[in-house]
């Protein structure tokens, strides 16, 4: 079925209850709709595109200015390029970006090491402040993490022994 273009003013009752004071919107200086804006399509001078940009498919164009920091690179960059095939309306856009962020963290550590720099995790996490102002809770937290980690390691390294016993039980050696 084809949609027809109509002049709304021809519709009986159009605008008879319009009340400009009934405005629940965000406070604006001068509220107007697009048809009241004579140059709604006017654009500022455009920034030259000299870096790889990922563009939302919900936009008609690259914005007149854009950030040039950290263009997409490596595996995280590939994931980000995939994500930008989908709109902001889709989890296929946002979830890959979160994955890419985590991959990017590993890439960052590799990059540091490749430049001969060992990341100072203690300093980067600001643990000096925890040590200075929150020592008891910080030590408790670290001890808990260490204990849980040790427990998991012990559990994993002992994993084979019970299953071997079980195997022996079900399939006893020849007698």
């Amino acid at each position: 079925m084809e949609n027809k273009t109509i002049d709304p003013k021809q519709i009986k009752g159009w605008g008879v209850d319009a009340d400009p004071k009934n405005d629940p919107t965000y406070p604006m200086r001068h509220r107007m709709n697009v048809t009241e804006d004579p140059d709604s399509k006017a654009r500022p001078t455009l920034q030259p595109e000299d870096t790889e940009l990922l563009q939302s498919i919900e936009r008609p164009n690259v914005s007149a200015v854009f950030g040039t920091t950290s263009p997409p690179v490596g595996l995280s960059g590939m994931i980000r390029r995939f994500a930008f095939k989908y709109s902001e309306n889709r989890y296929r856009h946002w979830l890959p970006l979160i994955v890419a962020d985590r991959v990017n963290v590993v890439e960052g550590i590799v990059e540091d090491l490749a430049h001969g720099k060992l990341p100072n995790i203690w300093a980067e996490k600001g643990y000096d402040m925890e040590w200075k102002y929150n020592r008891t809770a910080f030590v408790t937290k670290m001890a808990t993490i260490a204990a849980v980690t040790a427990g998991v390691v012990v559990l994993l390294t002992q994993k084979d022994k019970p299953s071997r016993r079980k195997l022996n039980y079900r399939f006893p050696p020849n007698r």
Partner: protein
Amino acid sequence: MLAMDYRGPKRVRAVQKPMPEIKHPQDAIVRVTRTCICGSDLHLYNGNVPDTRVGTTFGHEFVGVVEEVGPEVTKVKVGDHVIVPFNIACGECHFCKQGMFGNCQESNTMASAVGSIYGYSHTAGGFDGGQAEYARVPYANVGPTIIPPGMDHDDAVLLTDVVPTGYQAAEMAGIQTGDTVVVFGAGPIGIMAARCAWLFGAGRVIIIDQEDYRLEFARNYSYCEAYNFNEMNDPVVFIKKITDFMGADVCIDAVGAEAAGNAMQTITGRKLLLQAGSATALHWAINSVKKGGVVSIVGVYGPTDNLVPIGNVLNKGLTIRGNQTSVKRLLPRLIEHVQNGTLNPKGLITHRLPLEEVADGYRMFSAKLDNCIKTVMIPPSAKM
């Protein structure tokens, strides 16, 4: 130049980076004299905002001195001391013309819902921020506002976000004379929202948080009642009881994605990232406000979904208003308020650090150590 460098969740450092360059004829380069860590920076710091890339410099609250301008810049000149609003706005698009400088159509290629914000992930434009010695400031004819003579840069830096956002929270709430206003969150924004609620004629202002030191600060700074939600069985019932079971006229969510207070929200929103952050404060706001009341949202959430009782929004006939703050629209009025002593922004500052200690600053603010309310960082080149 020295700049903050994001390395991953809860990992940042100060490193040497290349100087920013003029990339567009309306750009300026600003030498930063003061820069803050904002509560919303913690969403980035904790790795909760999608497309936050390693190597990015955060920081959307900064002031400084114009060092260089592009050929089309006419409104500021080299040597001017400027407030830099946290939004990047062209001033010419359909939205900027309406005063919606937080919703500019010509500054963010990577997303359509949000305008561009300095140092706030590629989802918000991919610009480096002001936690650095120098920053690129696009559309320098629009955003940067001259710091009035005699205004302290400590006051000015809080006019880039904290004061306008707190003010807009109260403005969007449509407060009527005598209204009871409940603010969730006693961070810098919540404290400022509570303070600004009085400017709109509130009759009673209540702030809810779980940090006693922040509640005490809010009592003194914002002249409001302050309550710790950990001392209540149910914050919504508490608010109903103290409002004769009617609910507050207005509730303000000044927390956003990092909210505590509800285990299910915390686990699904903050730990597992199954929601766009923990929506506990918004949930409480919707359920605490009276029928026909207004919920004003300035707390920041991610771009996906949140679990909130939307059925109650319908059943109670609520109005929900929210937006990124239109700093430029509000600045003239707020500068007046600061100059005539109505507002005292720098009274929020509890800690000053050199930029070199950015990692300590983030940890201190994030973990609420040493009774931290607001941290200001001073770059080494910030000679006044």
